[in-house]
C-alpha cells in the first residue's frame, strides 16, 4: 500500500483560451501539510478543485487512497464525487462561507447530518469540536455575531467534524490579520496533521506556508518547484 493519500498525474484544465492547468503531477503523503503557492492566476485554486473532485480536469487522473481502497476521482460521476467530498474531505474557504442563518454549532453539525447522523448526536460532536477550537460558549451564536477569526474556526470545525481524511483549504487566512491568521493556521494544523490527517492549503502567506511540511510553487498552470520550509529553494 502506498503512503500517498492523493496521487495526481498529468492534470490539465483549460477555460477557453486560458490553460489554468498545463500538466500537473502531484503526490500528497498521508499526514502531511502541503502548501500550494504562486502568483494570482497561476492555477492554485483550479488544482485544489481538481484534487478535491470539485472540478473534472480535461485530462489526467486523481487517485484517492482511503481505508476503503483506492478510487480514481475524475472517473466518478457528479453524484459520487459529491458524496466523496461530503464523507472523506473537509473544506475551508477564504470567507468561511458558513450558512448565515444557522448557529455555529448547527453549521458544524450540518456536515454530519448530511452523512445521515441524527441531529442530537451531530450537535454533540459539533460542540466538542467547537470547544476544542476555543469556541466554547459561542455554540449558539449566529455567524454574524462572530469575528472573522472565530467564523473561520467554525469552518475548520465543520471541515473536521466528519473525520475527513483530507482537508482542503483555499486561502483560509486570506481575510484575517497576521496574529489571527497565525492562530487560525495553528488550529487548522492541530486538527489535521496533529491527528494524522492530511492538509492541502493554498496560500499567498509565507508565514502560513512556513508552518507546512512541504511547499509547491506554481506558475502558469505548472508546478515549477518544491521546497521544505526553512530550507532555501
Amino acid at each position: 500500500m502506498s503512503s500517498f493519500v492523493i496521487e495526481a498525474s498529468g492534470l490539465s484544465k483549460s477555460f477557453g483560451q486560458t490553460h489554468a492547468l498545463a500538466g500537473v503531477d502531484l503526490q500528497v503523503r498521508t499526514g502531511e501539510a502541503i502548501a500550494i503557492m504562486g502568483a494570482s492566476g497561476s492555477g492554485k485554486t483550479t488544482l485544489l478543485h481538481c484534487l478535491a473532485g470539485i472540478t473534472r480536469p480535461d485530462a489526467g487522473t486523481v487517485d484517492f487512497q482511503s481505508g476503503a481502497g483506492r478510487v480514481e476521482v475524475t472517473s466518478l460521476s457528479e453524484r459520487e464525487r459529491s458524496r466523496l467530498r461530503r464523507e472523506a474531505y473537509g473544506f475551508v474557504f477564504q470567507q468561511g462561507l458558513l450558512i448565515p442563518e444557522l448557529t455555529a454549532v448547527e453549521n458544524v453539525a450540518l456536515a454530519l447530518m448530511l452523512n445521515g447522523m441524527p441531529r442530537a448526536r451531530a450537535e454533540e460532536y459539533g460542540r466538542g469540536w467547537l470547544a476544542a477550537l476555543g469556541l466554547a460558549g459561542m455554540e449558539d451564536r449566529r455567524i454574524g455575531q462572530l469575528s472573522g477569526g472565530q467564523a473561520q474556526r467554525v469552518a475548520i470545525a465543520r471541515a473536521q467534524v466528519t473525520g475527513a481524511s483530507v482537508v482542503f483549504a483555499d486561502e483560509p487566512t486570506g481575510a484575517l490579520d497576521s496574529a489571527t491568521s497565525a492562530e487560525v493556521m495553528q488550529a487548522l494544523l492541530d486538527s489535521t496533521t496533529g491527528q494524522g490527517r492530511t492538509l492541502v492549503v493554498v496560500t499567498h502567506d509565507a508565514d502560513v506556508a512556513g508552518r507546512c511540511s512541504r511547499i509547491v510553487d506554481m506558475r502558469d498552470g505548472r508546478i515549477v518547484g518544491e521546497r521544505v520550509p526553512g530550507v532555501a529553494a
Partner: protein
Amino acid sequence: MIARVAWLLARPGTSGAAASLLPVTAFAIVTALLLVVLGGAQSFWTWSDDIGVTYQALAVIALVLLVVPLASLGGAAARLSARRRDDRLATLRLLGATPATVSALAVLESVVLAAAGAIAGVVLYFLLVPLVALIPFRGEPLGVDGVLLGLPALAAVFAGVVLLAAASAVLGLRQVVISPLGVRTKQDAPKLHWLRIVIGVAVIAIAFLMMSVLQVAGSMLVIFAMLGLAFGGTIAVLNLIGPWVIRLVAQSQARRAKTPARLLAARSVLESPKAAWRQVSGVAMTSFMAVFAGTGIALLGSFGEAGDVESMQLFDDIRTGILITVIGSFLMVASSVGVNQAAGILDRGELYRSLDMLGMPTPTMDSARRRAVMSPLRITAIGSAVTAAIVMLPLTGAAIIVAPLSLAVIAGVLAAGIGVVWLGLLATKPMLERAAAG
C-alpha cells in the same frame, strides 16, 4: 460614461439570462393584468342605471383586492433587477465609478427592464383584448370597444410601472449601500411583539360583531361601509399576525428538525418571518377571497330560485368577477414567488456554490428552499381561510360555510393557490442548479 458602462452591464452575466428575463416577465404580467382589469372595469362605467352603480362598487372592490399582490410583485421585480447588478458593483467601483454613478446605473437598469416588461405587457394586453371582450357581464359580452383602453390610460399605466420600478430600485439600493454584504452581515434575527396578537384578536372580534349587527343597519351605504371596514380590518390583522405566527411555527420546526433540509428551511424562515410572509401574503388574500367567494356563491345559489331576472344576472356576474380576481391574483402570486426566489438565489450564489463543494446535494438545497416557502404558505392559506370563515359566520351561518359547494370552491381555490406557488418554485430550480455548479 454612464451609457458606456450601462452597455457593459447589459451583457449576460454570471447569473444567466434568467435573472433579467424574470423581472421583465414579471413587469409584463403586472402591466398586462393591470390593463385587463382596468379595461374590464372601464366598461362598467358606461352604465348609468341603478344596478350599474352596484357593478362599479364591486369593480372597485376587485381592484383594491388586486392592488396588494400587484404592488408586491412590482416591488419584487424591482428588487431582483436591483440585485442583479450587485455582483458587478464591486467591479464598477474598481473601474473608478463613483457611488453616485453606480446608483444612477442601478436605477437606470431597473427602469430599462421595467420599460421593456411594460411594453411586452401592453402587447400582451392587446393580445388578450379579444378574449376579455368575450367575458359576459349583464348578459352580453363586454365587447372589444368596451375593453379597449385609450392612449392616456395606456401611457399612465406604463409610466406607473416604470416609476414603481425606479422607486423600488432606489429603496433597494439604500439597503445595499448600508450593508454591502447583505444577509451575511445581519446580526440578529428580528423580533416581533406579542402585542400584535392582542390587537389582532380584538380587531377580529370587532369585525365579527359588525357582521352580526349588519342586518339591522339602516341604509345600504352603512352596510357597505361596515362590510368594507370588517374586511379591510381583517386583512390588516392578517398582515399583523401572519409574520408572528410564521415565526412561532418556524421556531418549533427549527427545534424539531431532523434533516438538513428541514433545519435549513426553518432557520431561513426565522431569518425574516416578514419576508417569508410577504412572499406568500398574496395567497392569504386569495384564501380570504376563496372563503368569501365559496360562501358567497353558495349563498347566492340559495337566493337564486326566488330572485328576479336582474338579480340572477348580478349573481352570475359576481361569480364571473370573483373568478377573474382569483385568477389574476394567483398569476401575480406565482410570478412574485418566482421573482423573489430568483433574487434569493442570486443573493446566495456563492454560498450555494460552497455548499455544493462541501458535498451538499443540490436536491437538499432545493428542498430546503421549497420548504421555506411552502410551510409558511400552508400556515398562511389555512390561517387566512379560517379567519375569513370566522368573520363570515354571523353573516352566512355555519351551514353555508360547511355546505359542500362552499367547501369545494374553497378547497379548489386553496389547492390552485398552493399549486401556482409550487410552479414559481419549480421555475427557478434551474437557476439554483446553475448557482450551485458555479
